[in-house]
């Protein structure tokens, strides 16, 4: 309480300002309490119960004991890891490459930028259906254009346990324009004087890229890495639509949030689903903190102390 007394401003003007602050942010604050904090606490409690919307029974850590013995839990973790830890680096590298290309003086620049960004606008169900059709093993476009001329039978993509996750990588790469635009903006913020100076010193194009471009946009790379990772670990819509909510074939595309959704809303195991949700939350927090820590010496910030 004494802390509050010390923290609360003394002058009338400052008190009015503090009051105004809380009034301005009240929509978010109320929303946070009702739609974030309360659900978080409730979810933590549900994770210790057996709950099917009607009856709730407290069971302690039983859900977590079930979880460590659940094959599908490990399967979904593995599927998500495969999708994320290959898909995200692949996407980020390609996005950076495209951004570097689109930062050159080429004809019809704004036209190309528009085209590359287009797939990021039409995300969701339509894109999932489109790729389910393009990657159709028999009648689809990709196998016809790439594997047919080589005389090899193309992969069965969404219908193959081996190829279903690579199919989602391809789908993700098609929408790389969203990340690309962020890099493009980052590249345009690098002072040209640095490149000119390096050129006078005789630095090659590769050297300029790795010694100037990469360090200068390293905060942007970190930002996209963290946000894409958090986003990709929660992949749901595409997989739900393509696999008709089954995560098939043989659970080979059972991503984590899909498994959680099935537990919660198909099998009404709300307690178990909540336990799964908390495990995901912990994974995301740990990974984010690890990345922020690991990047401390790798990321260059221009403003001191930032």
């Amino acid at each position, binding site marked *: 309480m004494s802390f509050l007394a010390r*923290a609360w*401003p003394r002058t009338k003007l*400052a008190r009015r*300002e*503090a009051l*105004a*602050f*809380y009034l*301005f*942010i009240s*929509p978010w604050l*109320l929303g946070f309490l009702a*739609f974030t904090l*309360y*659900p*978080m606490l*409730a*979810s933590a409690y*549900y994770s210790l119960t057996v709950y099917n919307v009607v009856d709730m029974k407290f069971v302690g850590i039983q859900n977590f004991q079930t979880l460590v013995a659940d094959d599908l839990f490990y399967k979904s973790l593995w599927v998500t890891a495969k999708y994320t830890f290959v898909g995200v680096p692949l996407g980020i590298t390609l996005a950076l490459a*495209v951004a570097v290309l689109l930062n*050159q*003086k*080429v004809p019809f620049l704004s036209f190309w930028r528009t085209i*590359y*960004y287009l797939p990021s*606008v*039409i*995300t*969701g*169900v339509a894109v999932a*259906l*489109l790729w389910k*059709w*393009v990657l159709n093993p*028999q*009648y689809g*476009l990709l196998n*016809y254009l790439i594997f*047919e001329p080589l005389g090899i039978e193309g992969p069965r993509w969404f219908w193959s346990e081996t190829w279903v996750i690579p199919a989602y990588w391809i789908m993700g790469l*098609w929408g790389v324009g969203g990340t690309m*635009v*962020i890099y493009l903006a980052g590249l345009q913020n690098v002072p040209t004087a640095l490149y000119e100076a390096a050129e006078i010193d005789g630095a090659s194009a590769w050297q300029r890229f790795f010694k100037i471009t990469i360090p200068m946009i390293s905060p*942007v790379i970190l*930002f996209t890495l963290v*946000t894409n990772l*958090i986003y990709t*670990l929660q992949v*749901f*819509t595409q997989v*739900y*639509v393509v696999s008709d909510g089954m995560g098939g074939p043989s659970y080979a595309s059972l991503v984590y949030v899909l498994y959680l*959704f099935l537990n*919660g809303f198909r099998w009404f195991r*709300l307690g178990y*689903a909540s336990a799964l949700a*908390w495990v*995901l*939350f912990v994974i*995301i927090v740990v990974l*984010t903190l690890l990345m922020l820590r690991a990047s401390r010496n790798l990321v260059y910030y221009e403003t001191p102390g930032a």
Partner: protein
Amino acid sequence: MAKEIAASQKVPRAKARARPRLWGSKKFRQRVTQVLATVLIAIGGAVILVPVFWMFSTSLKTQNTVVSLPPDFIPRQSQSVEVNGRKLYLYDVDIDGETKVLAAVKLDPEKSEFVDPNDPSQVYYTPASQARKHKMVWAHWENYVETWTFATTPFGTFMKNTTIYALVAVFGEVLTCSLVSYGFARLRAPGKNFLFMLLLGTMMLPWAVTMIPSYVLFTRYIPDILNGLLDTKIKLADTWWPLMVPKFFGSAYLIFLVRQFYMGIPKDYDDAARIDGCGFFQTWARIILPMSRPVLTAVAILSFMYHWNDYGGPLIYLSSTEKLPLSVGLANFSEAYGGTPYHLMMAASLIAVAPLVIIFFALNRYFVQGVVVSGIKG
């Protein structure tokens, strides 16, 4: 000592001079890079556009031509004619180095029989290898009508629902984010830094964590409380309320974006307004709000895009067909129709994304601006 350094510096210079003149010239290298970049960009652009074109072309085919092999980029189909009361297929036949469109009477590897459809008395004999099915470009625009009017998935209703949802969400989020951001960017109060860290922290929170309790809250607790207080029989399951109401409480990501923009507006504007007698609310409404059109447009577009495509939320809360948004309706279409009618699914997908794409091309400038705001300041 000084001489040694001078000598060692001379070596690379001499080397540079020894390089071939053409490659050594900066202009030439720049030209090569530019051509190479253009070629790569064009290839990448094609990779992006080909699936879209394929989607469009598929949407104009028929159930049969969709699965014809090899896949055809253009919606084409074979033709048949009536000759002497018999239905015969048309073939492109090579005869004496000339290609003729003929009707096939009998196909045989050695000796196929063809007649001229305009003059059936003209008969030609040739091995079947000389003949290919004659295909005509035939765009089935009626696929769009069939999809749109398919009774089990009323796309008109879906589009209306999605439009209302997206517009309400944009209105709620833009208004709230602008207000909240002003507080975080401009006003001093104890606890502000803590609350701001909390706001950033919520961005890490998976939707999966809050999904289940929010569902229980909206479908059980809130109706129970309301009905207990008001003696009513309100039900929130299978309504849009649980999806729309939270939009008026802001979104952490968008608040962060707008706040970053507000931080860039010089504080002198606020001070001047304050001296002229404006309160905090007036300063926001009259000074800050008019200046923040670019960032609010960007936020509106991001929000519109997100809610137009939103699938998970509606999937959980809504069940009656007439309440569904485009995303869920589109996903349900193939099951409702039976089988996988890819031509109609592509038509439906194009209908669903068309409004977004039109808006994208109309407001292209603001789209990129939105991403720039969101990416760099982060």
